[in-house]
Protein backbone atom coordinates (compact mmCIF):
# COMPACT_ATOMS: atom_id res chain seq x y z
CA UNK A 1 0.00 0.00 0.00
CA UNK A 2 1.48 3.26 -1.02
CA UNK A 3 0.53 6.85 -0.54
CA UNK A 4 -0.28 9.21 -3.29
CA UNK A 5 2.53 11.55 -3.89
CA UNK A 6 1.40 15.02 -4.71
CA UNK A 7 4.16 16.82 -6.47
CA UNK A 8 3.82 20.50 -5.95
CA UNK A 9 3.62 22.83 -8.87
CA UNK A 10 7.23 23.71 -9.24
CA UNK A 11 9.53 24.27 -12.19
CA UNK A 12 11.54 21.22 -11.16
CA UNK A 13 11.62 18.66 -8.42
CA UNK A 14 13.97 19.71 -5.72
CA UNK A 15 16.26 17.34 -3.91
CA UNK A 16 13.83 17.72 -1.12
CA UNK A 17 10.99 16.26 -3.09
CA UNK A 18 13.14 13.36 -4.20
CA UNK A 19 13.88 12.55 -0.61
CA UNK A 20 10.20 12.40 0.23
CA UNK A 21 9.40 10.35 -2.78
CA UNK A 22 12.10 7.82 -2.07
CA UNK A 23 11.04 7.47 1.53
CA UNK A 24 7.54 6.80 0.51
CA UNK A 25 8.50 4.48 -2.27
CA UNK A 26 9.81 2.08 0.33
CA UNK A 27 6.16 1.31 0.72
CA UNK A 28 6.22 0.29 4.33
CA UNK A 29 2.91 0.03 6.06
CA UNK A 30 2.58 2.68 8.70
CA UNK A 31 0.57 1.02 11.35
CA UNK A 32 -1.24 3.78 13.16
CA UNK A 33 -2.82 1.30 15.47
CA UNK A 34 0.47 0.23 17.05
CA UNK A 35 0.36 0.12 20.85
CA UNK A 36 1.58 3.29 22.54
CA UNK A 37 4.69 2.91 24.59
CA UNK A 38 4.76 6.47 25.83
CA UNK A 39 1.73 8.62 26.39
CA UNK A 40 2.28 12.29 27.13
CA UNK A 41 -0.61 14.11 28.77
CA UNK A 42 -0.71 17.88 28.90
CA UNK A 43 2.98 18.32 29.57
CA UNK A 44 4.27 21.74 30.62
CA UNK A 45 7.94 22.40 31.26
CA UNK A 46 9.54 25.49 32.76
CA UNK A 47 13.03 26.83 33.29
CA UNK A 48 12.42 29.26 36.10
CA UNK A 49 9.90 31.58 34.51
CA UNK A 50 10.44 30.51 30.92
CA UNK A 51 7.61 28.33 29.69
CA UNK A 52 9.44 26.01 27.34
CA UNK A 53 6.84 23.34 26.66
CA UNK A 54 3.19 24.31 26.61
CA UNK A 55 0.55 21.71 27.15
CA UNK A 56 1.87 19.01 24.90
CA UNK A 57 -0.06 15.75 24.47
CA UNK A 58 0.78 12.87 22.20
CA UNK A 59 1.20 9.14 21.99
CA UNK A 60 4.43 7.55 20.93
CA UNK A 61 3.99 4.19 19.29
CA UNK A 62 6.00 1.22 20.41
CA UNK A 63 8.70 -0.12 18.10
CA UNK A 64 8.44 2.89 15.89
CA UNK A 65 10.63 5.86 15.24
CA UNK A 66 9.02 9.15 16.12
CA UNK A 67 10.74 12.35 15.03
CA UNK A 68 10.30 15.72 16.66
CA UNK A 69 11.05 18.62 14.37
CA UNK A 70 10.83 22.36 14.70
CA UNK A 71 12.93 25.53 14.57
CA UNK A 72 15.62 26.09 17.19
CA UNK A 73 14.28 27.11 20.53
CA UNK A 74 10.91 25.53 19.97
CA UNK A 75 11.29 23.29 23.00
CA UNK A 76 11.87 19.95 21.30
CA UNK A 77 14.97 19.09 23.30
CA UNK A 78 13.27 20.17 26.51
CA UNK A 79 10.33 17.95 25.66
CA UNK A 80 12.64 15.04 24.98
CA UNK A 81 14.36 15.48 28.30
CA UNK A 82 11.02 15.32 30.05
CA UNK A 83 10.57 11.82 28.76
CA UNK A 84 13.42 10.43 30.82
CA UNK A 85 13.29 12.86 33.73
CA UNK A 86 16.51 14.59 32.71
CA UNK A 87 14.74 17.91 32.65
CA UNK A 88 14.63 18.08 36.43
CA UNK A 89 18.41 17.74 36.72
CA UNK A 90 18.74 21.40 35.73
CA UNK A 91 18.37 23.68 38.74
CA UNK A 92 15.22 25.78 38.57
CA UNK A 93 13.47 23.43 36.17
CA UNK A 94 9.97 22.15 36.78
CA UNK A 95 7.17 20.49 34.91
CA UNK A 96 3.50 19.68 35.10
CA UNK A 97 1.56 16.97 33.41
CA UNK A 98 1.98 13.26 33.06
CA UNK A 99 4.14 10.97 31.04
CA UNK A 100 2.98 7.37 31.01
CA UNK A 101 5.47 4.64 30.25
CA UNK A 102 3.58 1.40 29.62
CA UNK A 103 0.65 2.90 31.40
CA UNK A 104 2.39 4.21 34.49
CA UNK A 105 3.20 7.83 35.20
CA UNK A 106 6.96 8.24 35.43
CA UNK A 107 6.44 11.33 37.52
CA UNK A 108 4.40 9.63 40.20
CA UNK A 109 5.84 10.40 43.65
CA UNK A 110 6.74 6.80 44.33
CA UNK A 111 8.73 6.47 41.14
CA UNK A 112 12.51 6.59 41.24
CA UNK A 113 13.96 8.74 38.45
CA UNK A 114 17.04 6.53 38.40
CA UNK A 115 14.88 3.61 37.34
CA UNK A 116 13.10 5.69 34.70
CA UNK A 117 16.40 6.70 33.19
CA UNK A 118 17.52 3.13 32.92
CA UNK A 119 14.39 2.22 31.04
CA UNK A 120 14.41 5.29 28.84
CA UNK A 121 17.90 5.80 27.50
CA UNK A 122 19.38 8.87 25.89
CA UNK A 123 21.96 9.76 23.29
CA UNK A 124 23.13 13.35 23.24
CA UNK A 125 23.93 15.87 20.57
CA UNK A 126 27.63 15.75 21.16
CA UNK A 127 29.16 12.38 21.88
CA UNK A 128 30.22 12.30 25.53
CA UNK A 129 32.10 9.10 26.29
CA UNK A 130 33.80 9.12 29.66
CA UNK A 131 37.41 10.06 28.99
CA UNK A 132 38.73 8.27 32.06
CA UNK A 133 37.31 4.94 30.91
CA UNK A 134 38.26 2.56 28.16
CA UNK A 135 35.88 1.70 25.32
CA UNK A 136 34.91 -1.50 27.12
CA UNK A 137 34.40 0.28 30.44
CA UNK A 138 32.29 2.92 28.75
CA UNK A 139 29.95 0.34 27.31
CA UNK A 140 29.48 -1.62 30.51
CA UNK A 141 29.40 1.26 32.98
CA UNK A 142 25.60 1.09 33.16
CA UNK A 143 25.73 -2.58 34.05
CA UNK A 144 28.37 -2.04 36.69
CA UNK A 145 26.18 0.63 38.24
CA UNK A 146 23.50 -2.00 38.58
CA UNK A 147 25.84 -4.29 40.44
CA UNK A 148 26.66 -6.72 37.65
CA UNK A 149 30.24 -7.77 38.02
CA UNK A 150 30.44 -11.12 36.34
CA UNK A 151 33.05 -10.66 33.64
CA UNK A 152 31.43 -13.12 31.28
CA UNK A 153 28.10 -11.33 31.39
CA UNK A 154 29.78 -7.98 30.88
CA UNK A 155 31.77 -9.29 27.93
CA UNK A 156 28.69 -10.73 26.32
CA UNK A 157 26.61 -7.61 26.76
CA UNK A 158 29.47 -5.41 25.61
CA UNK A 159 29.85 -7.38 22.40
CA UNK A 160 26.15 -7.45 21.78
CA UNK A 161 25.67 -3.73 22.38
CA UNK A 162 28.64 -2.84 20.21
CA UNK A 163 27.28 -5.05 17.44
CA UNK A 164 23.89 -3.42 17.75
CA UNK A 165 25.61 -0.07 17.45
CA UNK A 166 27.51 -1.27 14.38
CA UNK A 167 30.80 -0.57 16.11
CA UNK A 168 32.02 -4.02 17.12
CA UNK A 169 34.15 -4.77 14.10
CA UNK A 170 35.93 -1.47 14.38
CA UNK A 171 36.81 -1.70 18.05
CA UNK A 172 36.89 -5.37 18.98
CA UNK A 173 40.67 -5.42 19.06
CA UNK A 174 41.13 -2.14 20.88
CA UNK A 175 38.59 -2.31 23.65
CA UNK A 176 41.14 -1.14 26.20
CA UNK A 177 41.77 2.14 24.45
CA UNK A 178 40.24 5.22 26.03
CA UNK A 179 36.74 6.05 24.89
CA UNK A 180 37.85 9.40 23.53
CA UNK A 181 40.42 7.90 21.18
CA UNK A 182 37.77 7.19 18.56
CA UNK A 183 36.57 9.46 15.78
CA UNK A 184 33.48 11.62 16.26
CA UNK A 185 31.13 9.24 14.52
CA UNK A 186 32.56 6.24 16.34
CA UNK A 187 32.27 8.02 19.69
CA UNK A 188 28.61 8.65 19.06
CA UNK A 189 28.06 5.00 18.22
CA UNK A 190 29.94 4.15 21.40
CA UNK A 191 27.48 6.30 23.30
CA UNK A 192 24.64 4.47 21.61
CA UNK A 193 26.19 1.14 22.61
CA UNK A 194 26.56 2.42 26.14
CA UNK A 195 22.91 3.37 26.24
CA UNK A 196 21.84 0.04 24.74
CA UNK A 197 23.81 -2.01 27.24
CA UNK A 198 21.31 -1.38 30.01
CA UNK A 199 18.49 -2.70 27.81
CA UNK A 200 16.21 0.31 27.71
CA UNK A 201 12.74 0.08 26.27
CA UNK A 202 12.88 3.51 24.73
CA UNK A 203 15.86 5.32 23.24
CA UNK A 204 15.78 9.08 23.05
CA UNK A 205 18.12 10.69 20.54
CA UNK A 206 18.72 14.41 20.78
CA UNK A 207 20.06 15.52 17.38
CA UNK A 208 22.50 12.61 17.47
CA UNK A 209 24.12 13.30 14.14
CA UNK A 210 24.17 17.08 14.05
CA UNK A 211 27.86 17.21 14.93
CA UNK A 212 28.86 14.48 12.50
CA UNK A 213 29.89 14.22 8.88
CA UNK A 214 27.37 12.92 6.31
CA UNK A 215 28.80 9.40 6.20
CA UNK A 216 28.55 8.97 9.96
CA UNK A 217 25.13 10.55 9.88
CA UNK A 218 23.85 7.93 7.48
CA UNK A 219 25.34 5.18 9.61
CA UNK A 220 23.44 6.47 12.61
CA UNK A 221 20.23 6.67 10.67
CA UNK A 222 20.69 3.08 9.51
CA UNK A 223 21.30 2.14 13.09
CA UNK A 224 18.09 3.75 14.19
CA UNK A 225 16.13 1.76 11.64
CA UNK A 226 17.58 -1.53 12.79
CA UNK A 227 17.13 -0.73 16.46
CA UNK A 228 13.48 -0.09 15.83
CA UNK A 229 12.88 -3.80 16.02
CA UNK A 230 13.85 -4.01 19.65
CA UNK A 231 13.20 -0.50 20.93
CA UNK A 232 11.02 2.52 20.59
CA UNK A 233 12.94 5.51 19.31
CA UNK A 234 12.20 9.19 19.67
CA UNK A 235 14.53 11.39 17.71
CA UNK A 236 14.80 15.15 17.81
CA UNK A 237 16.23 16.63 14.68
CA UNK A 238 16.47 19.96 12.96
CA UNK A 239 17.15 18.20 9.67
CA UNK A 240 13.87 17.60 7.91
CA UNK A 241 15.31 15.25 5.32
CA UNK A 242 16.59 13.13 8.13
CA UNK A 243 13.17 13.05 9.73
CA UNK A 244 11.67 12.07 6.43
CA UNK A 245 14.21 9.33 5.82
CA UNK A 246 14.18 7.78 9.20
CA UNK A 247 10.93 8.20 11.06
CA UNK A 248 7.51 6.59 11.01
CA UNK A 249 5.70 9.46 12.69
CA UNK A 250 6.69 13.07 13.01
CA UNK A 251 5.66 15.78 15.45
CA UNK A 252 6.13 19.41 14.60
CA UNK A 253 6.65 21.82 17.47
CA UNK A 254 6.67 25.56 17.43
CA UNK A 255 7.32 27.87 20.39
CA UNK A 256 6.67 25.14 22.90
CA UNK A 257 3.42 23.84 21.48
CA UNK A 258 2.66 20.81 19.39
CA UNK A 259 1.36 22.02 16.06
CA UNK A 260 0.90 18.79 14.21
CA UNK A 261 1.58 15.13 14.68
CA UNK A 262 1.05 12.34 12.23
CA UNK A 263 2.56 9.72 9.99
CA UNK A 264 5.68 11.13 8.45
CA UNK A 265 4.58 10.76 4.88
CA UNK A 266 1.36 12.62 5.51
CA UNK A 267 2.95 15.39 7.51
CA UNK A 268 5.46 16.13 4.83
CA UNK A 269 3.21 15.90 1.81
CA UNK A 270 -0.20 16.94 3.08
CA UNK A 271 0.37 18.93 6.25
CA UNK A 272 -2.85 19.87 7.90
CA UNK A 273 -1.64 23.05 9.56
CA UNK A 274 -0.51 26.19 7.82
CA UNK A 275 2.46 26.57 10.15
CA UNK A 276 3.65 23.06 9.41
CA UNK A 277 3.54 23.72 5.73
CA UNK A 278 5.42 27.00 6.16
CA UNK A 279 8.12 25.26 8.13
CA UNK A 280 8.65 22.32 5.83
CA UNK A 281 8.73 24.48 2.77
CA UNK A 282 11.41 26.56 4.38
CA UNK A 283 9.53 29.77 4.84
CA UNK A 284 11.02 30.09 8.31
CA UNK A 285 13.29 28.24 10.70
Amino acid at each position, binding site marked *: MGFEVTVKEAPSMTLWDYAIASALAKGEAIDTDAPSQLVVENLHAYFGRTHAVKGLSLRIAAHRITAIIGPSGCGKSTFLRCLNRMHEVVPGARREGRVLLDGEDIYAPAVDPVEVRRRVGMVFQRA*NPFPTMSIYDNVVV*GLRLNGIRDRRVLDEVAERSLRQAALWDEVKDVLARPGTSLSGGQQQRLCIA*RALAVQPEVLLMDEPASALDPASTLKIEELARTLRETLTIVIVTHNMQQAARVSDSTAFMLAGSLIEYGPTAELFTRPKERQTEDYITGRFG
Partner: protein
Amino acid sequence: MSYAAPAGRGVPPLPAESRVRSGRGGDAIFRVLLTVFGVAVIVLVAAIACVLTGAAMPAIRRFGPAFLWTSRWDPVHNIFGALPFVFGTVASSALALLVAVPISLGVAVYLVEIAPPRTSIALSFIIELLAAIPSVILGLWGIFVLAPWVRSAVEPVLSAVLGWLPLFSGPQYGIGLLAAGIILAIMIIPIVSSVSRDVLRAVPAEQREAMYALGATRWEVISRAVVPYGRIGIIGAVILGLGRALGETMAVTMVIGNRPQISTSLFQPAYTIAAVLANEFSEATSDLYLSALIEMALVLFAVSLIVNALARWLVARATSHARAAR
Protein backbone atom coordinates in the same frame (compact mmCIF):
# COMPACT_ATOMS: atom_id res chain seq x y z
CA MET B 1 46.00 29.11 37.35
CA SER B 2 47.74 29.76 34.08
CA TYR B 3 50.69 32.04 33.69
CA ALA B 4 49.87 33.10 30.16
CA ALA B 5 48.21 36.46 29.74
CA PRO B 6 44.42 36.21 30.12
CA ALA B 7 42.92 36.15 26.65
CA GLY B 8 40.20 38.22 25.13
CA ARG B 9 40.61 41.55 26.79
CA GLY B 10 42.47 43.08 23.91
CA VAL B 11 44.72 45.38 25.87
CA PRO B 12 46.60 47.20 23.14
CA PRO B 13 50.29 46.59 23.72
CA LEU B 14 52.69 49.22 24.85
CA PRO B 15 54.26 50.57 21.67
CA ALA B 16 57.95 50.04 21.25
CA GLU B 17 58.04 53.44 19.69
CA SER B 18 55.66 56.15 20.51
CA ARG B 19 54.10 57.79 17.55
CA VAL B 20 53.62 61.06 19.30
CA ARG B 21 56.95 62.72 18.91
CA SER B 22 56.93 65.03 21.83
CA GLY B 23 56.15 62.21 24.23
CA ARG B 24 58.65 59.77 22.89
CA GLY B 25 61.08 60.22 25.73
CA GLY B 26 58.39 59.94 28.34
CA ASP B 27 56.96 56.76 26.91
CA ALA B 28 60.35 55.15 26.58
CA ILE B 29 61.22 55.96 30.16
CA PHE B 30 57.86 54.64 31.28
CA ARG B 31 58.35 51.41 29.42
CA VAL B 32 61.76 50.94 30.98
CA LEU B 33 60.37 51.75 34.40
CA LEU B 34 57.60 49.22 34.10
CA THR B 35 59.93 46.56 32.79
CA VAL B 36 62.35 47.15 35.64
CA PHE B 37 59.65 46.70 38.23
CA GLY B 38 58.25 43.71 36.43
CA VAL B 39 61.62 42.06 36.29
CA ALA B 40 62.22 43.04 39.90
CA VAL B 41 59.96 40.19 40.92
CA ILE B 42 62.17 37.69 39.18
CA VAL B 43 65.29 39.38 40.53
CA LEU B 44 63.85 39.19 44.01
CA VAL B 45 63.31 35.45 43.93
CA ALA B 46 66.72 34.93 42.37
CA ALA B 47 68.19 37.11 45.10
CA ILE B 48 66.55 35.02 47.78
CA ALA B 49 68.01 31.89 46.27
CA CYS B 50 71.48 33.43 46.04
CA VAL B 51 71.55 35.01 49.47
CA LEU B 52 70.35 31.84 51.13
CA THR B 53 72.83 29.69 49.29
CA GLY B 54 75.65 32.04 50.08
CA ALA B 55 74.86 32.21 53.75
CA ALA B 56 74.41 28.45 53.95
CA MET B 57 77.75 27.76 52.29
CA PRO B 58 79.78 27.25 55.49
CA ALA B 59 77.39 24.57 56.65
CA ILE B 60 77.14 23.01 53.21
CA ARG B 61 80.89 22.76 52.98
CA ARG B 62 81.22 21.43 56.47
CA PHE B 63 78.51 18.79 56.48
CA GLY B 64 77.86 18.02 52.84
CA PRO B 65 74.75 16.08 51.81
CA ALA B 66 74.96 14.03 55.02
CA PHE B 67 73.38 17.05 56.66
CA LEU B 68 70.04 15.81 55.49
CA TRP B 69 70.26 12.43 57.12
CA THR B 70 72.26 13.13 60.25
CA SER B 71 69.99 13.02 63.23
CA ARG B 72 72.12 14.75 65.81
CA TRP B 73 71.41 18.42 66.47
CA ASP B 74 73.93 19.59 68.98
CA PRO B 75 74.64 23.33 69.06
CA VAL B 76 76.98 22.96 71.98
CA HIS B 77 79.36 20.75 70.07
CA ASN B 78 78.69 22.36 66.72
CA ILE B 79 77.25 19.22 65.22
CA PHE B 80 74.19 19.82 63.11
CA GLY B 81 72.03 17.26 61.38
CA ALA B 82 68.72 18.13 59.81
CA LEU B 83 67.05 14.72 59.97
CA PRO B 84 64.85 15.31 63.04
CA PHE B 85 63.46 18.45 61.44
CA VAL B 86 62.96 16.85 58.06
CA PHE B 87 61.18 14.01 59.80
CA GLY B 88 58.97 16.36 61.77
CA THR B 89 58.12 18.40 58.71
CA VAL B 90 57.29 15.37 56.60
CA ALA B 91 55.39 13.57 59.35
CA SER B 92 53.27 16.54 60.36
CA SER B 93 52.50 17.40 56.74
CA ALA B 94 51.64 13.81 55.89
CA LEU B 95 49.29 13.59 58.84
CA ALA B 96 47.75 16.91 57.85
CA LEU B 97 47.12 15.64 54.32
CA LEU B 98 45.64 12.41 55.61
CA VAL B 99 43.12 14.32 57.67
CA ALA B 100 42.50 17.28 55.36
CA VAL B 101 42.16 15.63 51.96
CA PRO B 102 39.04 13.53 52.60
CA ILE B 103 37.41 16.43 54.41
CA SER B 104 38.32 18.89 51.64
CA LEU B 105 37.02 16.57 48.95
CA GLY B 106 33.78 16.16 50.85
CA VAL B 107 33.52 19.92 51.17
CA ALA B 108 34.22 20.49 47.47
CA VAL B 109 31.72 17.83 46.39
CA TYR B 110 29.08 19.27 48.67
CA LEU B 111 29.65 22.81 47.44
CA VAL B 112 29.56 21.90 43.75
CA GLU B 113 27.17 18.98 43.47
CA ILE B 114 24.87 18.95 46.44
CA ALA B 115 24.32 22.37 47.97
CA PRO B 116 21.84 24.79 46.44
CA PRO B 117 23.64 27.71 44.75
CA ARG B 118 23.11 30.36 47.42
CA THR B 119 24.08 28.04 50.24
CA SER B 120 27.14 27.08 48.26
CA ILE B 121 28.27 30.68 47.94
CA ALA B 122 27.71 31.41 51.62
CA LEU B 123 29.54 28.27 52.72
CA SER B 124 32.43 28.95 50.35
CA PHE B 125 32.82 32.35 51.91
CA ILE B 126 32.82 30.93 55.41
CA ILE B 127 35.43 28.34 54.59
CA GLU B 128 37.64 30.91 52.96
CA LEU B 129 37.36 32.89 56.15
CA LEU B 130 39.22 30.05 57.80
CA ALA B 131 42.14 30.86 55.52
CA ALA B 132 42.19 34.45 56.72
CA ILE B 133 42.93 33.51 60.34
CA PRO B 134 46.54 34.43 61.10
CA SER B 135 48.69 31.45 61.92
CA VAL B 136 49.70 32.79 65.33
CA ILE B 137 46.08 33.11 66.40
CA LEU B 138 45.40 29.52 65.38
CA GLY B 139 48.47 28.61 67.39
CA LEU B 140 47.09 30.41 70.41
CA TRP B 141 43.86 28.48 70.06
CA GLY B 142 45.94 25.37 69.55
CA ILE B 143 47.79 25.78 72.83
CA PHE B 144 44.75 26.54 74.96
CA VAL B 145 41.94 24.70 73.24
CA LEU B 146 43.12 22.08 70.78
CA ALA B 147 46.02 20.56 72.71
CA PRO B 148 44.04 20.09 75.92
CA TRP B 149 41.22 18.55 73.89
CA VAL B 150 43.65 16.24 72.14
CA ARG B 151 45.11 15.20 75.47
CA SER B 152 41.80 14.66 77.20
CA ALA B 153 39.63 13.35 74.41
CA VAL B 154 41.53 12.22 71.33
CA GLU B 155 44.63 10.56 72.64
CA PRO B 156 42.90 8.45 75.30
CA VAL B 157 40.46 7.13 72.71
CA LEU B 158 43.17 6.38 70.17
CA SER B 159 45.26 4.77 72.84
CA ALA B 160 42.38 2.63 74.04
CA VAL B 161 41.36 1.47 70.59
CA LEU B 162 44.64 1.39 68.67
CA GLY B 163 47.18 1.54 71.46
CA TRP B 164 48.83 -1.68 70.33
CA LEU B 165 50.20 0.24 67.34
CA PRO B 166 53.45 2.07 68.07
CA LEU B 167 51.85 5.06 66.37
CA PHE B 168 49.52 5.57 69.30
CA SER B 169 51.66 4.54 72.20
CA GLY B 170 53.40 6.37 74.95
CA PRO B 171 52.58 9.25 77.28
CA GLN B 172 49.86 11.64 76.24
CA TYR B 173 50.91 15.24 76.35
CA GLY B 174 48.38 16.77 73.98
CA ILE B 175 51.19 18.85 72.54
CA GLY B 176 52.99 16.86 69.88
CA LEU B 177 52.92 15.54 66.36
CA LEU B 178 49.23 14.67 66.46
CA ALA B 179 48.15 18.17 67.50
CA ALA B 180 50.47 19.67 64.90
CA GLY B 181 49.01 17.44 62.20
CA ILE B 182 45.49 18.41 63.17
CA ILE B 183 46.17 22.12 63.23
CA LEU B 184 47.96 21.93 59.88
CA ALA B 185 44.96 20.08 58.48
CA ILE B 186 42.71 22.89 59.65
CA MET B 187 44.96 25.37 57.89
CA ILE B 188 45.11 23.61 54.55
CA ILE B 189 41.46 22.61 54.25
CA PRO B 190 40.46 26.02 52.80
CA ILE B 191 42.96 25.96 49.97
CA VAL B 192 42.57 22.30 49.05
CA SER B 193 38.80 22.54 49.09
CA SER B 194 38.54 25.79 47.16
CA VAL B 195 40.88 24.64 44.40
CA SER B 196 39.11 21.27 44.24
CA ARG B 197 35.84 23.12 44.06
CA ASP B 198 37.06 25.07 41.04
CA VAL B 199 38.29 21.88 39.42
CA LEU B 200 34.98 20.10 39.92
CA ARG B 201 33.08 23.09 38.62
CA ALA B 202 35.11 22.93 35.44
CA VAL B 203 33.91 19.40 34.67
CA PRO B 204 31.61 19.74 31.64
CA ALA B 205 27.90 19.28 32.25
CA GLU B 206 27.72 16.67 29.50
CA GLN B 207 29.75 14.26 31.55
CA ARG B 208 27.23 14.44 34.35
CA GLU B 209 24.32 14.19 31.95
CA ALA B 210 25.73 11.11 30.30
CA MET B 211 25.94 9.39 33.66
CA TYR B 212 22.47 10.50 34.77
CA ALA B 213 20.96 9.33 31.51
CA LEU B 214 22.28 5.82 32.14
CA GLY B 215 20.30 5.68 35.34
CA ALA B 216 22.88 6.60 37.95
CA THR B 217 22.20 8.07 41.36
CA ARG B 218 23.64 11.46 42.24
CA TRP B 219 26.45 9.91 44.21
CA GLU B 220 27.29 7.56 41.35
CA VAL B 221 27.47 10.52 38.99
CA ILE B 222 29.84 12.26 41.39
CA SER B 223 32.05 9.29 42.12
CA ARG B 224 32.17 7.73 38.67
CA ALA B 225 32.02 10.69 36.30
CA VAL B 226 32.79 14.01 37.97
CA VAL B 227 35.62 13.22 40.38
CA PRO B 228 37.52 10.91 38.00
CA TYR B 229 37.33 13.59 35.33
CA GLY B 230 38.83 16.13 37.70
CA ARG B 231 41.36 13.85 39.33
CA ILE B 232 44.41 15.62 37.91
CA GLY B 233 43.32 18.97 39.24
CA ILE B 234 42.43 17.48 42.59
CA ILE B 235 45.90 16.02 42.88
CA GLY B 236 47.18 19.51 42.12
CA ALA B 237 45.02 20.90 44.89
CA VAL B 238 46.37 18.34 47.32
CA ILE B 239 49.95 19.18 46.40
CA LEU B 240 49.18 22.88 46.90
CA GLY B 241 47.98 21.98 50.37
CA LEU B 242 51.16 20.04 50.94
CA GLY B 243 53.20 23.08 49.92
CA ARG B 244 51.33 25.20 52.41
CA ALA B 245 51.73 22.65 55.19
CA LEU B 246 55.47 22.27 54.66
CA GLY B 247 56.10 25.94 55.25
CA GLU B 248 53.68 26.64 58.09
CA THR B 249 55.54 28.04 61.04
CA MET B 250 53.72 29.65 63.92
CA ALA B 251 50.77 27.39 64.58
CA VAL B 252 53.03 24.37 64.29
CA THR B 253 55.72 25.62 66.60
CA MET B 254 53.16 26.43 69.23
CA VAL B 255 51.73 22.92 69.43
CA ILE B 256 54.38 20.52 68.27
CA GLY B 257 56.55 20.53 71.37
CA ASN B 258 59.76 21.61 69.72
CA ARG B 259 61.89 18.63 70.58
CA PRO B 260 64.32 17.47 67.93
CA GLN B 261 63.65 13.77 68.07
CA ILE B 262 62.45 11.07 65.76
CA SER B 263 59.89 8.78 67.29
CA THR B 264 57.31 6.34 66.05
CA SER B 265 54.52 7.67 68.18
CA LEU B 266 52.22 10.50 67.11
CA PHE B 267 51.77 11.45 70.75
CA GLN B 268 55.41 12.49 71.01
CA PRO B 269 56.66 16.03 70.50
CA ALA B 270 58.67 16.75 67.39
CA TYR B 271 60.26 19.64 65.52
CA THR B 272 59.88 21.00 62.01
CA ILE B 273 62.29 22.98 59.88
CA ALA B 274 60.13 26.08 60.02
CA ALA B 275 59.68 25.74 63.77
CA VAL B 276 63.37 25.42 64.57
CA LEU B 277 64.05 28.46 62.41
CA ALA B 278 61.45 30.41 64.33
CA ASN B 279 62.77 29.38 67.73
CA GLU B 280 66.51 29.19 67.43
CA PHE B 281 67.40 31.69 64.77
CA SER B 282 67.69 34.72 66.96
CA GLU B 283 69.65 32.75 69.52
CA ALA B 284 72.17 31.12 67.24
CA THR B 285 75.49 31.63 68.91
CA SER B 286 78.02 30.59 66.36
CA ASP B 287 78.35 31.27 62.66
CA LEU B 288 78.18 27.59 61.90
CA TYR B 289 74.97 27.31 63.89
CA LEU B 290 73.45 30.12 61.92
CA SER B 291 74.72 28.71 58.69
CA ALA B 292 73.20 25.32 59.45
CA LEU B 293 69.86 26.97 60.14
CA ILE B 294 70.07 28.89 56.90
CA GLU B 295 70.89 25.70 55.05
CA MET B 296 67.61 24.30 56.31
CA ALA B 297 65.85 27.44 55.16
CA LEU B 298 67.39 26.83 51.76
CA VAL B 299 66.05 23.28 51.73
CA LEU B 300 62.62 24.60 52.62
CA PHE B 301 62.88 27.18 49.86
CA ALA B 302 63.82 24.62 47.24
CA VAL B 303 61.18 22.10 48.25
CA SER B 304 58.47 24.75 48.42
CA LEU B 305 59.41 26.01 44.97
CA ILE B 306 59.22 22.57 43.38
CA VAL B 307 56.03 21.56 45.13
CA ASN B 308 54.20 24.79 44.33
CA ALA B 309 55.28 24.82 40.69
CA LEU B 310 54.16 21.20 40.27
CA ALA B 311 50.84 21.88 41.91
CA ARG B 312 50.09 24.96 39.84
CA TRP B 313 50.95 23.12 36.65
CA LEU B 314 48.58 20.26 37.46
CA VAL B 315 45.73 22.59 38.34
CA ALA B 316 46.27 24.66 35.20
CA ARG B 317 46.18 21.50 33.09
CA ALA B 318 42.97 20.35 34.68
CA THR B 319 41.05 23.58 34.38
CA SER B 320 42.22 24.46 30.88
CA HIS B 321 41.63 20.91 29.67
CA ALA B 322 38.04 21.15 30.72
CA ARG B 323 37.63 24.53 29.11
CA ALA B 324 39.07 23.27 25.85
CA ALA B 325 36.87 20.18 25.89
CA ARG B 326 33.74 22.27 25.85
